[in-house]
């Protein structure tokens, strides 16, 4: 094999974060196209048992660093371990998930290695690049595809001359590859020397994460509320979601206002969802929200402002007060359901 794709694997509480597996699957597809290998970077403490699963899910090699000092993510020791392995193994591509960890770590690694990085990619591909100034041709480079300028355009970015080509990829866009226990691969264990500067400059005093209770990713129908909904609007949204057998979503504004918990948040800083039907109630359609739901099969928007940007991306738009529309719609659907 002529090249390597590295994928940084995130772990939390001793298990692999799902979005890392999604990216591993995407990396496998790219590697098959280019004839590259997929190699996972697994860092943590007491995590050796996770290496096999990464091979079953598509990795050819797992680079493992099992060290007490890597038990929880901290930027400096993680940067050291990854850059050291990268400098020795010379991968062509290094991909991270665009979580708060990946977005903290990715640029730091890129700066240390003196290479380029593209944030929040929504797709990746492999292809050729011809420098428009020199005519120089580069084969099998990473196409880093992401929305730009507020989502009005999609940009394809390349890093032709520097290695590794780095990208962070938004979680929730690719499916988790199936587990194939017949797959085999190598597990390479590394020992990394850390300096006091790297291990003592940042100390974790406390950390608290609530697991997501709302399963928006697999939901067929999502009824979502925004700034225009208010706590009372969310009561109606909940009722409609229940009636349709769907889940409740929310914009960042609604979460920040405290009307609903973070695990319902859809958008750039929340979850990316692709339901069959997405019903946006009182959501104006800020780009932060749209990037998280624009790939829904059908989008229905309810908003009293006829100029709200949400209507531009909606299949069906109902202009009006959601406090009048929702109760009537619920009533209508209820009577339809009785007749079913």
């Amino acid at each position, binding site marked *: 094999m002529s090249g390597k794709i590295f994928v940084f694997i995130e772990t939390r509480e001793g298990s692999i974060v799902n979005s890392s597996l999604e990216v591993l699957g995407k990396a496998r597809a790219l590697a098959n196209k280019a004839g590259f290998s997929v190699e996972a970077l697994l860092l943590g403490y007491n995590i050796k048992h996770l290496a096999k699963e990464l091979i079953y899910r598509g990795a050819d090699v797992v680079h493992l660093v099992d060290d007490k000092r890597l038990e929880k993510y901290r930027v400096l020791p993680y940067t050291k371990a990854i850059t050291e392995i990268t400098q020795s193994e010379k991968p062509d591509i290094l991909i991270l998930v665009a979580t708060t960890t990946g977005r*903290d770590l990715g640029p730091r690694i890129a*700066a240390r290695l003196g*290479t380029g990085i593209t944030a929040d990619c929504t797709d990746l591909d492999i292809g050729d690049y011809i420098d428009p100034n020199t005519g120089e041709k580069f084969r099998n480079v990473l196409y880093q595809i992401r929305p730009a300028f507020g*989502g009005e355009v999609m940009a*394809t*970015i*390349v890093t032709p001359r520097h290695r590794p080509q780095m990208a962070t990829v938004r979680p929730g866009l690719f499916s988790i590859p199936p587990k194939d226990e017949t797959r085999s691969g190598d597990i390479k264990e590394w020992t990394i020397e850390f300096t006091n500067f790297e291990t003592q400059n940042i*100390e974790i005093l406390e950390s608290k994460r609530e697991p997501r209770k709302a399963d928006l990713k697999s939901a067929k129908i999502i009824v979502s509320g925004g700034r225009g909904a208010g706590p009372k609007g969310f009561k109606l949204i909940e009722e409609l979601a229940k*009636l349709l057998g769907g889940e409740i979503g929310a914009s960042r504004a609604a979460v920040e206002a405290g009307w609903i918990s973070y695990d319902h948040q859809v958008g750039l800083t929340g979850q990316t969802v692709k339901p069959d039907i997405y019903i946006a109630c009182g959501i104006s359609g800020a780009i932060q929200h749209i990037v998280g739901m624009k790939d829904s099969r059908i989008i229905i928007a309810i908003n009293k402002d006829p100029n709200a940007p949400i209507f531009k991306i909606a299949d069906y*738009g109902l202009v009006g007060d959601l406090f009048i529309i929702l109760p009537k719609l619920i009533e209508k659907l209820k009577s339809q359901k009785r007749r079913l």
Partner: protein
Amino acid sequence: MNIIVLVKPVPDPKAPVRLKPDGTIDREKVPLTMNLYDKHAVEAALRIKERYGGKVIAISMAPPHAIEILREALAMGVDDAILLSDKRLVGSDTLATSYALSQAILKIGNFDLILCGMESTDGNTGHVGPEVAEFLGIPHTTYVERIEIKNEYVVVKRLVEGGYELLKVKIPALLTITNTANEPRIPTIRDVIKARRKAITVWSVNDIKADPNKIGLFGSPTRILKIEKVVLKRKSKIFSGSDVDKIIESFLAELKKDGISLLR
């Protein structure tokens, strides 16, 4: 506490984005504003200064006309403002930008904290903070909502998915600030007038002793291969009017016609 705040002028998010025929953004006609998240960083810096004393310097790498954004920072209360502006910086990606900014910070010299927004509202990369910290060899923490100074450390609350972390970080450090950290102050007319009279230092590439090979398009590892306008293939059937019953009826009828069922 000597604090440096990195401030980015961005196209006003409220102004409609105009694209040139080749698909790139028409930046000349778009009014500029201070990146929203950087405003929260300026506010955070001013609050630390008010509590612990010290000095706040705002720095921006931008074209000359972006000087107005630094005036805004001065009006909010920063002590000094520096504009890093040079034709040779045009085309810099996040790595080249971070290198240039870190060179400017080295020229300023004495600092305890560097603050900036968690990302910009135009690029949304969030790269510059961590990259500047790496060039300076200091620790960084992203998504910071709360800052407390404890001798030679800062204790920060960092937002993560579904929760937070409390981190103790050695000073000097770079922190990127969320928009939930504070409510940025609005300068009074008097502050704005006072800021007009303040001198803003302008530095060139020579002033910061930047390696010309590490800046501008040449010093940027990334290239744009193509930009495509997003074509939304949506039906955009809009139902409006004063009769809500009619809106709902025609909407449900249209759904039925299109073979879509809400109930299953």
